[in-house]
């Protein structure tokens, strides 16, 4: 091939990989074939750097119906129903073009859900931006939020929760992770495994254009100063088209017309056709002349690699062609039979009567390279740990002022300015809205509800990836429990820098180990996930950012718990213990200005007991409210309960450490509950039997938050500080 060096560089393939391709297929690939290899062997599609480690996370359990490897995972929640969910990143496109990057991120994850036959019922996000003090960053924030809103709102699927952090580690590489959750009949879940030689292959949905060509390979490379030139590779979303596609697919899935289905996401037609056929051990023949196209003169490689949105590839049963065509035509969508399954496990692509691609599927899928990359603990981590942050912080002269400063900081304050742009009430199932510990969605026709939360504090993972990643699992479980639900399963979205950098690889492996260990100890399986590498610009990596999306189940939604203080005179109880630690805390960040120290200590076994204790108390109806202590510690958690209930509290604590450390430490495994006096003995006894520290710290009382003689702030003032936005 002429100019092989240049071509390989453009396709992001190494010379070693090229040699391997030639060896595998016994010939020099033509250019179209090489494009197909570059897509299938990209990090994004092949998981070549992460594969050796992903298996460490437990993925089985009594409720698991579908584990990792499909479009999304599924768990049983009884009553013949399954919850189907997954989280995915759309980081690179969102940095280049925030609105469409974020919008198509939502579109993609929703397709993963309804591809399985599930109707999506909720969207959540997890966002990371630089500090919101530059116009560039405000543009990115506004664009991303509007993009998520624009897509989800139009689809009529509520965006019910999420999280956002601001730190200059993301200044040149923001993170946009979206999670979608759907409900399906447990016995009618559709998979991407082809079967039945001779069955027809249908292309449905939008027409194919040149947008997004090379998206999978773009997502597998780092940013440079020429990033703006990548704009044409960002896809444009059309949520209206996706709404029609979703309704059409779900209508078709009511009957037995389909044997397999997969959305055309990253690497478009290439990955969907290759993966479906390979999973079924069959081959596939495709005629590109039959692919609906919106531009003229597209080359075969462009059609194969296009990432135009709102498209699906499905394998129908022979003889059911008319039914497929009828449903998609009813919804005004393109539907075209573009090929068939064949016995011999090859992919053959024709256009203009000529064969352009003829490759063994095994070479594309099973023989994709897997790298065990060199990993080494970053020197920066040891340095950060050596800086003992506590000594750097002077005790506040005015606790009230510091308290309000913390409460109004972008990392802690109310995110209403974001979630009020999301339609979170469509669907009439959102029982607990955004702004609480977890969202709670009812399942119509049952008494059940599902709780959902996304969590991941990357300051902790930066300072200690193992501990931080385990903390993310613990916090998600605690959030789920705080609304009264039991954690069932989780999905993860692992956002990291360049895996060819040993520091990053070490952070990645440690994070996986942290998640795996927490999941094993808490008996929570990982049923789907996504890895996003190469989040770096000009050689500078983001913080290692594993994000956990967890789903829990509440059997009786009338037993849900909310954080708001309910009645005057109720006792306020702290379950769990506060340690003298403030590494990686929000308090440290706003006072000393650095991200240093050790992350809070984590014990998943303690978390499991805390979750069990809270749920056991809730079953006895002896607690009135619950919320977890997270960013901003105990102090901020108390403020949130007061604001939510519009009730004051009088706190009297005996300090073991300096008060600011006790108030703002982000020690894990702590929950604040409120309860009537008559139940205190019972709560105390139960806490003892679960081996969880118990302490009455105050009463619900008055119209302000008073903490010892340190501060006294009217709830109204707390609310103003909390809700003023950024």
């Amino acid at each position, binding site marked *: 091939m002429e100019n092989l060096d240049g071509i390989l560089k453009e396709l992001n393939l190494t010379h070693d990989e090229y040699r391997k391709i030639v060896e595998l297929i016994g010939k020099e690939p033509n250019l179209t074939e090489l494009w197909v290899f570059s897509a299938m062997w990209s990090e994004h599609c092949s998981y070549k750097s992460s594969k050796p480690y992903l298996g460490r996370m437990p993925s089985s359990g009594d409720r698991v119906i579908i584990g990792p490897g499909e479009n999304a995972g599924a768990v049983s929640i009884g009553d013949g129903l399954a919850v189907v969910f997954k989280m995915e990143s759309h980081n690179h496109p969102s940095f280049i073009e925030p609105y469409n990057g974020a919008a198509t991120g939502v579109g993609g994850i929703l397709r993963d859900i309804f591809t399985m036959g599930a109707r999506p019922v909720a969207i959540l996000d997890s966002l990371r931006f630089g500090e919101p003090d530059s116009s560039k960053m405000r543009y990115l924030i506004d664009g991303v939020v*509007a993009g998520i*809103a*624009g897509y989800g*709102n*139009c*689809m*009529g699927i509520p965006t019910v929760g999420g999280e956002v952090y601001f730190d200059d580690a993301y200044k040149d590489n923001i993170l946009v992770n979206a999670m979608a959750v759907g409900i399906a009949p447990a016995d009618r879940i559709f998979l991407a495994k082809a079967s039945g030689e001779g069955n027809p292959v249908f292309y449905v949905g939008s027409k194919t254009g040149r947008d997004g060509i090379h998206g999978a390979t773009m997502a597998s490379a780092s940013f440079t100063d020429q990033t703006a030139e990548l704009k044409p590779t960002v896809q444009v979303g*059309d*949520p*209206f*088209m996706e*709404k*029609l596609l979703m309704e059409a697919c779900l209508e078709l899935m009511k009957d037995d017309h389909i044997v397999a289905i997969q959305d055309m996401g990253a690497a478009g037609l290439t990955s969907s056709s290759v993966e479906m056929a390979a999973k079924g051990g069959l081959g596939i023949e495709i005629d590109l002349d039959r692919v609906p196209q919106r531009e003229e003169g597209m080359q075969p490689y462009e059609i194969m690699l296009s990432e135009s949105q709102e498209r699906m590839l499905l394998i129908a049963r022979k003889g059911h062609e008319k039914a497929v065509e009828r449903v998609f035509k009813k*919804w*005004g969508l393109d539907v075209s039979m573009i090929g068939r399954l064949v016995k011999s496990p090859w992919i053959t692509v024709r256009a203009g009567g000529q064969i352009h691609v003829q490759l063994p599927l095994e070479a594309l899928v099973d023989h994709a390279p897997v790298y065990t990359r060199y990993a080494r603990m970053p020197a920066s981590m040891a340095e950060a740990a050596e800086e003992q942050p506590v000594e750097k912080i002077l005790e506040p002269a005015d606790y009230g002022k510091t308290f309000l400063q913390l409460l109004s900081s972008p990392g802690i304050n109310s995110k*209403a300015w974001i*979630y*009020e*742009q*999301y*339609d*979170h*009430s*469509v*669907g*009439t199932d*959102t*029982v607990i*809205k955004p702004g609480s510990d977890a969202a709670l969605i*009812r399942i*119509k026709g049952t008494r059940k509800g599902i709780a959902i939360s996304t969590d991941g504090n990357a300051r902790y993972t930066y300072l200690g990836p193992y501990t931080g990643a385990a903390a993310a699992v613990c916090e998600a479980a605690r959030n789920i429990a705080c609304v009264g639900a039991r954690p069932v399963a989780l999905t993860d979205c692992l956002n990291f820098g360049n895996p060819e950098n040993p520091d990053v690889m070490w952070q990645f492996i440690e994070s996986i180990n942290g998640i795996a260990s927490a999941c094993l100890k808490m008996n929570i399986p990982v049923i789907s996930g996504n890895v996003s590498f190469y989040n770096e610009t000009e050689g500078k990596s983001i913080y290692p950012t594993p994000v956990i999306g967890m789903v829990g189940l509440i059997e009786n*939604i*009338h037993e849900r718990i909310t954080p708001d203080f309910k009645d005057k005179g109720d006792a306020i109880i702290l379950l769990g213990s506060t340690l003298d630690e403030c590494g990686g805390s929000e308090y440290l960040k706003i006072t000393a200005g650095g991200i240093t120290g050790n992350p809070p200590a984590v014990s998943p076994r303690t978390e499991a007991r805390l979750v069990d204790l809270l749920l056991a108390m809730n079953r006895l109806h002896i607690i009135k409210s619950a919320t977890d202590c997270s960013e901003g510690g105990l102090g901020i958690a108390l403020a949130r309960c007061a604001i939510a209930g519009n009730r004051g509290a009088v706190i009297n604590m005996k300090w073991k450490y300096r008060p600011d450390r006790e108030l703002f430490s982000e020690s894990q495994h702590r929950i604040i509950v409120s309860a009537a006096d008559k139940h205190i003995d019972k709560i105390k006894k139960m806490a003892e039997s679960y081996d969880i520290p118990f302490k009455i710290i105050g009463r619900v009382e008055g119209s302000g938050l008073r903490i010892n003689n340190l501060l006294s702030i009217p709830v109204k003032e707390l609310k103003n500080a909390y809700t003023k936005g950024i």
Partner: protein
Amino acid sequence: MPGPKAGVIVFPGTNCDSDTYHAIKQVMGIDVDYIWYEKKTLKQYQLIVVPGGFSYGDYLRAGALARFSPVMDALRAYSENNGLVLGICNGFQILLEASMLPGSMQKNKTLKFICRDVHVRVERNNMPFTMLYKKGDVLRIPIAHAEGNYYAPEQTLKTLEGNDQVVFRYVDEKGRVSEDANPNGSVYGIAGLCNAGGNILAMMPHPERASDKLLGSEDGRKLFLSIKKALK
């Protein structure tokens, strides 16, 4: 004799159809059909709801394309025959675009989509949609829209107010009109509007999302119960 029957119109892109269907079933306990946008007659129904959503993606302008659907001629004929029509959110926008009510919708004053609970005051209860409310009742109901900033020329507004056609107005929780209580910039704080005959009601807030205690507010229930009573 069979009881009254309601229809919920479904355009491509409608997304509150099932919410509305569910609320009618649960609260009113009457039969409901989904009505595909190509349907040409609505004679068999006693209530037609034009629900919320993004009909035709709200491309061009919210509601601008839906008004050309075949079902709209049927809807006009049905309403001229005194049939009850309830337009919610996108339904309001469509009824305006179809000139079944006067005025138009602009983008919210914040230029952003807004989803939150708002308070509206019942300005009129001598009509089928609100007869179980008291005049002056303050209801807490969610809004969820990007284009709910109602506008009409001064002369039209005078006529609307003079004819008692403003049915719901944005207020604060104590029932007072103020700029802060008006989420989208709607002129005169108009949140809901009826035609001169009182058989077409259009509103931006979503009563179907405030009809179940589990969801935080039941203030929309009486709207459906009023209609039920009117149909007896």
